[in-house]
């Protein structure tokens, strides 16, 4: 087990959880997390990510599988014996206790004497840059400050694992970035193995060392942000992380690393087969990100008609109707007004480079 000084490893071993009704919440999840890593559990709401978090924390006893922290199987331990720190989405600060009492709460539960508790609470408040807020009540603090307190409170018990449940969802955009940097800084300082549950892909990609993408209770992919973004293993990951055009097509020829696909929209392109070689003549769904498509003036690519154009600041997104009736989005860097396109203009669209597209066997 590769344990960094304070971060312990976390293994989620074949965990399955079934609700009393029989419905599956999570199914056969395997995660091998090294000490000190930041991991994001990413997925749409209802994908089971919060259930998994609550299983790791000990609030839910999984139906099958094991949770191993460091070298210990913790399945038999109740939440108050697991030394897992949690920051809740709404922070769950104790409203009737002062900020330093909140931070010291876990230390009191461990029977640490008052003077030591106060010293430690002050040290943590210094760490989260709220040194003079100790006497206040939680409601006298702003959302961002409350979150810092929630972090300090979770860190006070020197947890072996830190769990963050949608920690930035309640913050406005500017504050969110500050807090993301702050959390990453604290994590680097403390070296605590950290798990962030989020539905926000940007958050997952920017903060995590590795991202676990979940859908319908299953683990779709567990890899580095660039693995997940550039080399998605499933159609779900490709469409959920970043935006993507889904284009139906037929395989012309394929080996393990490249497939030639004839798109229904009318072009032959090279795509990366996401899960090994594809059968010749098989139907596939090709995913191409809007930023990987360009307008071309020669006769390569496929034809289309420009519909709506949306200027999104740095880029302009054009909606193009293709010959087979489906639509694709094409994103262009915005350079002056040169890329303004008339509504209804006939264009040809082609990938920027081969193998930027991913091909997945079509599901029936």
């Amino acid at each position, binding site marked *: 087990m590769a344990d960094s000084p304070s971060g312990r490893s976390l293994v989620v071993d074949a965990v399955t959880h079934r609700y009393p009704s029989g419905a599956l919440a999570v199914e056969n999840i395997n995660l091998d997390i090294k000490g000190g890593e930041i991991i994001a559990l990413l997925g749409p709401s209802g994908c089971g990510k919060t259930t998994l978090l609550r299983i790791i*924390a*000990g*609030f839910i006893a999984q139906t099958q599988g094991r949770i191993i922290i460091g070298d210990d199987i913790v399945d038999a331990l*109740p*939440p*108050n*014996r*697991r*030394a*897992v*720190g*949690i920051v*809740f989405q*709404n922070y*769950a*600060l*104790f*409203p*009737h*206790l002062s900020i330093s009492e909140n931070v010291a*709460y*876990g230390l009191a*539960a*461990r029977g640490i004497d008052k003077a030591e508790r106060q010293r430690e609470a002050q040290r943590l408040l210094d760490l989260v840059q709220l040194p003079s807020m100790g006497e206040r*009540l*939680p*409601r006298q603090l702003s959302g961002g400050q409350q979150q810092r307190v929630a972090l300090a*409170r*979770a860190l*006070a*018990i020197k947890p072996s694992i830190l769990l963050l449940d949608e920690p930035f969802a309640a913050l406005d955009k500017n504050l969110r970035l500050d807090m993301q940097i702050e959390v990453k800084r604290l994590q680097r300082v403390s070296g605590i193995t950290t798990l962030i549950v989020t539905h926000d892909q940007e958050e997952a990609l920017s903060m995590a060392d590795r991202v676990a993408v979940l859908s319908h209770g299953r683990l779709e992919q567990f890899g580095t942000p660039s693995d997940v973004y550039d080399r998605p293993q499933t159609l779900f990951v490709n469409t959920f992380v970043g935006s993507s055009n889904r284009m139906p097509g037929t395989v012309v020829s394929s080996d393990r690393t490249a497939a030639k696909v004839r798109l229904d929209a009318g072009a032959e392109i090279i795509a990366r087969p996401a899960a090994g070689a594809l059968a010749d003549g098989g139907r596939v769904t090709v995913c191409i990100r809007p930023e990987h498509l360009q307008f071309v003036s020669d006769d390569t690519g496929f034809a289309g008609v420009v519909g709506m154009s949306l200027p999104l600041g740095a880029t302009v997104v054009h909606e193009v109707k293709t010959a087979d009736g489906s639509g694709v989005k094409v994103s262009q860097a915005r350079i002056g007004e040169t890329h303004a396109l008339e509504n209804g203009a006939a264009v040809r669209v082609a990938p920027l480079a081969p193998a930027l597209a991913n091909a997945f066997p079509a599901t029936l």
Partner: protein
Amino acid sequence: MGAAPASRDVTSYGMGLAVPLALFFLVFFVAPLLQLLWLSLHNDTAGLHWGIGQYLHFLTDPFSLSVLGSTLLLGAEVTAVCLVLGFPIAWLYQRVGPRLQTVIILIVLLPLLTSVVVRTFAWIVILGRQGIINATLQSLGMIDTPLKLLYTQFGVVIALAQVQMPLMTLPLITALGRIDPNLDDASCSLGAGSWRTFWRIVLPLSLPGVIAGCTLTYAAAITAFITQSLIGGGQMLFMPMYLYQQASTLQNWPFASAISIIFLLAVLAVVSVFTTLGRLSRGYGGA
């Protein structure tokens, strides 16, 4: 404090709507109360001599003071029983599924749906010499002679506690429902056991409900004429019955009026202690 001309002063309209109720209170509550005060300030039953003799009589009479004392004590006992029994019910209510919640709320409300007289007679059946409790204990061979349950302080407290239980449970359910369930989980994940979580988190945050419930239960218990007199019988005398005897049996209206006023002030004093506690706890738990 110049109000913006665009916004109407909210206190200036709508007051007219309160006039019917205000009149009702004036005629049927304030006027009789003033009459009561006026009556109590007479030294003789004929109402010819003014004075505070009735009050002096009450406050220097050991018997009257003992009735007042035992009534206030009775209220405290009933309130304590209701709190100890009602809190677990309210706590349970917040932790079970919606179906069981319906069952619990029905059980809590059921006493309110039957007449106090009926419920009190039911307690006579349960507590009597040949009642359910004594019959059961005797048939089990646990006692030889029937226990004296009826016409005792114990019997009155138990019966009143059952009658007044909803007044305690409902505010507690509301107060516990306002507590963020994540706080329980947060406390637990920080290493606290169930008891620490209860004493440090749940109880302090439910204090507004505890105080509301205690105020209601207390006020209802000490003024519960029917249950007090039927279960307490002739041997136990509490303020409402004492008052009734003075007024109806002895026709001593000035003294009865003075008893009323003193009782009223005593209740107000206790209630204001509760509300002061409530105000103190609001800064505490009402976040």
